[in-house]
């Protein structure tokens, strides 16, 4: 179920003095089973891009296709889009609203023609994925949890629907290191289970570890698009544009400059460890 953006442009507040073009003729295909990381400085159009991909904004020009069908056509079945494409926005915790965790997580299932048992099983599974004990939390108020826990609760609400395509906007910002790792491992599992993942993040180390492909936007245009090792190799080019290629890549560069013959595509922790151990003593 690929999502394709074909020469998509988007302008906010068109025809007013505040008109701002956020995206300029972006073409991008995300294929089934990919894990794509989207990066770029604040204001480069990342969030606009995913809202277009999820059908939450209509392009000013160009088209967005899901499975080859234009999602902005009048006859396109939007319910299908909502069920297939799950979106986790920035600070999803502010979307919690129900009186209990179970009701909140189940809200997205409300209009699906699933049986009660199937819905409850989906809610239980989603909460367990996010590291909660279903029985212990189901009747608690979602507002009685800490910030990071609320984040995980909100994401459970999106996963309960079992989308085929998961879009996330900075899901790990503000999570503590272990929650971050646990969440990224969960994403890896969902991805291995066949889910297509499109994730915006500034966390280059996380993307290096988990995403196969990196897309970088700059001022509303495609700046880089390719395999992670290739895109992050050009550390200087990224740095000039205010983008970090991650701490591992930085360490690789420091050692390379000091004469270590470590390939510049060394972007993952495990790779770096092997490179150093394999070349020691110099």
């Amino acid at each position, binding site marked *: 179920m690929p999502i394709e953006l074909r020469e998509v442009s988007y302008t906010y507040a068109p025809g007013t003095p505040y008109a701002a073009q956020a995206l300029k003729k972006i073409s991008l295909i995300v294929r089934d089973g990919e894990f794509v990381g989207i990066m770029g400085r604040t204001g480069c159009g990342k969030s606009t891009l995913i809202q277009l991909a999820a059908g939450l904004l209509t392009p000013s020009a160009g088209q967005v296709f899901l499975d080859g069908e234009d999602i902005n056509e009048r006859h396109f079945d939007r319910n299908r889009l909502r069920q297939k494409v799950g979106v986790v926005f920035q600070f999803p915790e502010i979307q919690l609203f129900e009186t209990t965790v179970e009701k909140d997580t189940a809200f997205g299932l409300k209009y699906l023609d699933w049986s009660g048992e199937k819905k409850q099983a989906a809610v239980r599974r989603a909460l367990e994925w996010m590291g909660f004990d279903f029985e212990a939390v189901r009747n608690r108020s979602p507002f009685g949890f800490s910030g990071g826990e609320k984040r995980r609760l909100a994401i459970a609400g999106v996963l309960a629907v079992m989308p085929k395509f998961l879009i996330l906007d900075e899901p790990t910002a503000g999570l503590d290191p*272990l929650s971050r790792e646990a969440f990224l491992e969960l994403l890896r599992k969902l991805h291995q289970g066949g889910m297509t993942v499109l994730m915006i993040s500034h966390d280059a180390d996380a993307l290096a570890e988990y995403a196969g492909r990196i897309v970088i936007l700059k001022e509303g245009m495609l700046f880089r698009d390719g395999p992670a090792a290739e895109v992050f190799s050009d550390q200087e080019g990224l740095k000039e544009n205010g*983008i970090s290629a991650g701490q591992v890549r*930085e360490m690789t560069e420091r050692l390379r400059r000091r004469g270590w013959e470590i390939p510049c595509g060394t972007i993952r922790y495990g790779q770096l460890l092997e490179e150093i151990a394999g070349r020691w003593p110099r």
Partner: protein
Amino acid sequence: MSDAIKAENPVPDIVKAENLVHSYAEDGRRSLDSLSLSVKQGEFLAILGHNGSGKTTLARHLNVLLEVQQGELTVAFLNAKDPANVWRIREKTGMVFQNPENQFVSFVVEEDLSFGPRNFGVPEAEIPARVRRALAAVDMSGYEKRSTHLLSGGQKQRIAIAGVLTVEPDILIFDEVTSMLDPAGRKEVRDTIARLHEKGKTVIMISHDIGEAVGADRAAILNSGRLLAVGTPRELFTDPELLHRAGLTPPLPVRLYHDLRGRGIRLSYCPITCGELEELLCR
């Protein structure tokens, strides 16, 4: 200053918490549990801990957004339990939060920065000078007439910091102020914080990014509302077992040091910055 003079004039504790207990819920679950911690005047203290460890609850006590339920607390040498001190403490402690978006009260930088001092009754004639000084301190002189919503993330956070500085507090509290920013914005804000500390402000920085806390004078690690450990960044961050118990991960150089050790490669000491690791590996 010689050690003898230091001993005679010890740096006073600008913040002193003793056995603080706080519970939000009626079920009595404790967000802070007998927490004792002090901060010296002019110190840069990093407070680390997992989500829900009590970091933010502690921070909210420091400017009396939360009242002391149990225990003792002095902030800026004032007893936080005395209601008469609330406003004076708030004037002495400036707090900046995580999300730059929801800290503005106006669309124009200058108006936003005037809001704090005006509320504290600073004479109108004095306010423009305060705004100018605050903008200079965050390296954004000349931004008086700019729109707050057109700034970058890093700039927004620096304006939020300037907004706190206009009240001229002694203690600055940063509650995960960089976690929403891109790397360039993070650097701007980190550099700003380091500069303010150099100029003598007491800085309390809450974070779970250890890399950010490496430059602090001291670090405190909270776990389930309790103080798990306090010490220099080097003492704490080179102890992966301690960090793991606190739900934190060691900095990259520390992780590499230990994993290399596991491979029989022994470096002479455990580095906490990439620069130190580089020197060790390139000797």
